[in-house]
């Protein structure tokens, strides 16, 4: 298994606060890594560094062979990123927004329509493509965010809380979508919904205070807990048992 995403001694400090502290892991094609941790654990900060938004204080991230410090554009091109809260331009319609992202992602003009249609179908946005994004429900906004992350069919997907705020049906759909792409991509999903890990992840990692506390396949992590539930194991390792 070749690692598409390699995190090497990744550290981020904000003044005196160390948000991410020497994080190290690799994720390969076909893996869906569930990135777990309490609020403030450093999940989003790590994802912001992987996506090239924040520069690491120390260490680095290598995505598909490109180092984020040396080749940030190549890293950004290889990644599909859903930032926390799925931000999108409220004045645009999903259609114009996705076309904008597709073009800026370097998709050739003749292929833009095809790529946008594909993600609209994948994320089931066809009913709302002509409505301004600001008028959409939270669930649709999140799907627009997912669609923009998928439009260039990236090898590496970084999804920061992709199901946050969705109703159970929408959650089910998004999980189904992630599963359908799992085989040919490398996917990192941050969440604090532990059932999500069971549903979609092939591997789970628990972090707190910027460090890895546990890393393994969900069944193994569960087995380590006396109560045989990931929930209990999470509380145990993050110090709230």
């Amino acid at each position, binding site marked *: 298994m070749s690692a598409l995403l390699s995190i090497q001694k990744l550290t981020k400090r*904000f003044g005196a606060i160390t948000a991410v502290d020497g994080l190290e892991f690799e994720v390969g094609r076909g893996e869906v890594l569930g990135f777990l941790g309490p609020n403030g654990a450093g999940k989003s900060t790590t994802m*912001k560094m992987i*996506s*090239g*938004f*924040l520069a690491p204080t120390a260490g680095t991230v290598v995505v598909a062979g490109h180092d984020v410090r040396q080749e940030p*554009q*190549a890293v*950004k*091109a290889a*990644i599909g*990123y859903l*930032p*926390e*809260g799925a*931000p*999108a*331009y*409220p*004045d*645009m319609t999903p259609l*114009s927004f996705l076309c*904008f*992202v597709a*073009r*800026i*992602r*370097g998709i050739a003009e003749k292929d833009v329509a095809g790529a946008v249609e594909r993600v609209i179908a994948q994320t089931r946005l066809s009913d709302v493509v002509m409505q*301004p994004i600001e008028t959409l429900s939270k669930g649709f906004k999140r799907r627009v965010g997912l669609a*923009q992350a998928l439009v260039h069919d990236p090898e590496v997907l970084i999804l920061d809380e992709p199901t946050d705020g969705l109703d159970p049906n929408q959650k089910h759909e998004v999980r189904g979508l992630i599963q359908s792409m799992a085989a040919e991509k490398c996917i990192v999903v941050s969440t604090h919904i532990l059932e999500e890990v069971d549903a979609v992840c092939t591997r789970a990692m628990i972090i707190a205070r910027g460090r890895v506390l546990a890393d393994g396949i969900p069944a193994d992590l569960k087995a380590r807990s006396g109560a045989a539930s990931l929930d209990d194991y999470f509380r145990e390792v993050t110090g709230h048992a």
Partner: protein
Amino acid sequence: MRNIGLIFRREFAAYFATPLAYIFIVIFLVMAGTMTFFVGGFLARDQADLQPFFGFHPWLYLFLVPALSMRLWAEDRRLGTIELLLTLPITMVEAVIGKFLAAWAFTGVALALTFPLWISVNYLGNPDNGVIVASYLGSYLMAGAYMAIGSLISAMTKNQVIAFVVAAAVCFLFTVAGSPILLNYFENWAPGELVQTIASFGFMTHFQAIQRGVIDLRDLIFFGSAIAIALTANAYVIDWKKAE
């Protein structure tokens, strides 16, 4: 270049997606007209030129340009779309220039729509059209300098109202830097060189020179470098503040 073009198109369209564009253009035209005819005495002067029109441009831009620039970065920072924009495979320079050019082009549209005044003055008399062309060019360059300052200040905050107020205040300082309003304050105690330096930053001084119909390279370089410096600082500020 392609990315700058794409960002430009998105940002330019964003002005027209809300009533902001139309409100801005109407207010700009009404105020420019009112100033020209009632304050500047365009007709009473009985002279075929557009001096009463251009003379008020620094004062109009002072309030209207910050109204356009305030959203440039503050809105992206508040909505979190800055994270989306800066994780697309574009460079910071492309993002800064694309956004700036869109806002500047929009001011260009508003300025271009004042053409009926130009036609009127040609109908009423025989103005020196060379001077008018130079004044339009100077006015547009000056608007660009105000816009670049506004863009820089917009990058410093998530709050658009703060961006507007601070940008208007800073633009005011640059407007009056060469005039007695500010210089009187310094003249009594500051060394002559300092007073001269402050005076040389005055937008009004440089614009008045162009308005006389003399396109001096120094005035063009002044506005050009004001734009370049403000936009460079803009890129650094975004990089510095984006984590917040």
